[in-house]
C-alpha cells in the first residue's frame, strides 16, 4: 500500500519544483555529448496534471523533448536522442549522482535499460532508456513502477 504515499510525495514535489518548469540550461543545449557537469532543469511538454521532473534533473545533451502520451500518468518526461543507447545509459549513471540523486539500482539490457534513483525526499523514480523510432533512443522519466 505504498503507492498512494509515493503519489502524494510526487504531488508534493510538484509544488516544490513547479517554478522550475520550462527552464533549460544553456550548457545542456550547446555542449557536446555526455558532460556530467551540464546538469539542467528541464520539463516535459504538455505535462498537464502530472508531477514535474525532480528538481535539477540532468538533461541529456542534444535530447529533444517529446509530447507525453495521455495514457501513462506515471510518465513525467520523454525525450528522443540520436546518441547510442549505451551512451545515454552511461550519461545518466554519471549525471544522476552528480545532480544529487542516489542510484538505487541499474539494469542495463539489450533492448532497454532502467535506472532507479531516489530524490532527497526518498521518492524513487526511474529513467528508462530504450529504442525509439528510426534508430533513435527514447528516454522516459517516470515515477517508480515494478
Amino acid at each position: 500500500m505504498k503507492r498512494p504515499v509515493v503519489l502524494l510525495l510526487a504531488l508534493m514535489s510538484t509544488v516544490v519544483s513547479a517554478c522550475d518548469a520550462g527552464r533549460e540550461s544553456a550548457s545542456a543545449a550547446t555542449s557536446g555529448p555526455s558532460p556530467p557537469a551540464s546538469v539542467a532543469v528541464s520539463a516535459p511538454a504538455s505535462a498537464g496534471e502530472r508531477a514535474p521532473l525532480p528538481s535539477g534533473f540532468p538533461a541529456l545533451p542534444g535530447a529533444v523533448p517529446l509530447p507525453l502520451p495521455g495514457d501513462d500518468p506515471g510518465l513525467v518526461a520523454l525525450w528522443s536522442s540520436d546518441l547510442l543507447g549505451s551512451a545515454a545509459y552511461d550519461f545518466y549513471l554519471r549525471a544522476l549522482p552528480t545532480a544529487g540523486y542516489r542510484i538505487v539500482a541499474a539494469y542495463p539490457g539489450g533492448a532497454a535499460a532502467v535506472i532507479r534513483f531516489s530524490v532527497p525526499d526518498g521518492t524513487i523514480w526511474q529513467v528508462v532508456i530504450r529504442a525509439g523510432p528510426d534508430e533513435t533512443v527514447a528516454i522516459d522519466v517516470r515515477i517508480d513502477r515494478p
Partner: protein
Amino acid sequence: MTMRMRRGSGSLALLLVLLGGVAGSALAADDYTLPFYDPGVTLSFGVDRDRTLNRQLDWTGQAWNDGVPHAGRVYDQHTGTDYPMALRSEVAAAKDGTVIDVEGGYGTTQFGSFGNFVLLQHADGRRTLYYHLASAADGGIAVVIGQTVAAGQLVGRSGCSGTCYGAHLHFEMLAWSAAARAYLSVDPLAERRWTTWPGRIAYDAAYVRESNPGTEVIQQGHTITHWVEFRNAGGRTWRVSATVGRVALATWSPASHASPFAASDWPSTSIATYLDNASVAPDGVGRFTFGLRGSTALGIYRETFNLAAISVRWFDHGRLGGFYVPIQVTSLPSCGPAALTHALIPVC
C-alpha cells in the same frame, strides 16, 4: 540485437512455455552454472516466455502484458537473460562444451546486431550464447572455434557491442526443437533445474576451519601436518579424479610461487595438496591436508594459499577469507596442538 525471434507465433510461444514448464526440479550439481565469476551479479532482465508483442511472461511466472521493461524481471520479446556487468568483466562457460561460433569484429561499444559473441555446444545437446562481448582487443573473445572449454572457464569479457543499453552480458540458452527444426531459446531461470538463476558460479568456496588456526611452530628441518576445510559454495562438484577442474590448494600472493615451506608430500613446490576427499558436492565440506617443512632461517612467516580448479581458474581468494598460515620456524622442538591436547603442561 538480442531479440532473435521478434514475431513468435502462438504455437511457438506455447511450445516455449511448455519447454519452460519443467519447473520445480531440484537444483542439479554440475548442471549449468552462472556465466561469470562474481556471485554478486544480479539480474537485469530475464527471458520473455510469451514472445507475442506486448505480452510478457517473466521467469517467475508473472504476466505483465504491457510491452514495457520491468527491471529485474523481463522486457518484451527478450530471448535471453541480461546480467549487469562492467566493461571487460570476465565471462565464464556455463558448462563444459565446444566453441562452435565466435564473432569478434565489433568495437567494445559499437552498435550493430548481436555484437561480439561466443556460441558453445554442450554434450546434452543444448547451446549457450554470450552476447555483447568486448572487442577482441579488449579481451572480449578468449576462445577460438573448435576449442573445448570447461565449465567456469573464461570465454571472454563483457562489453556493450551490438544493440546494447549499458554494459551487460546477454546469456542465452538454446534447445533443439524437432517441431521447429531449429534451436529455440529456453528460459534457464524458469526451468529451475538449471543452476543459472538463482544460481551459483562454477567454483566458489568458504573457509570452515583448520587444524591450527594460530601460528604453526615448526622446528627447523622438521615437518608438521596441517589441514584446512572449505565448504563448496560453487555449482560444480569437486573431484580429485578430474583431469580438468581438479581442485588443489596452491600457493598464492603471488600465485603459484615456489614455497619455502614445501614438504615432501607436495605434488609440486607450488601445489600443497589436492582435495583429500574423492568428491565434494555443492554445500559439502572438503579437506586439504598437507605438510609444512621448516626449511627457512629461524623467524616468523606467513604462507598464503588459494584454491584452484586446475586448468580452469583460481578461486576468489577473498571469499576464502584470505586464507594463510602463520608460521614460526624455531630451533626448539615443535609444540603442536596434539601435545597441548594430551597434557596440561606442554611437553615441548
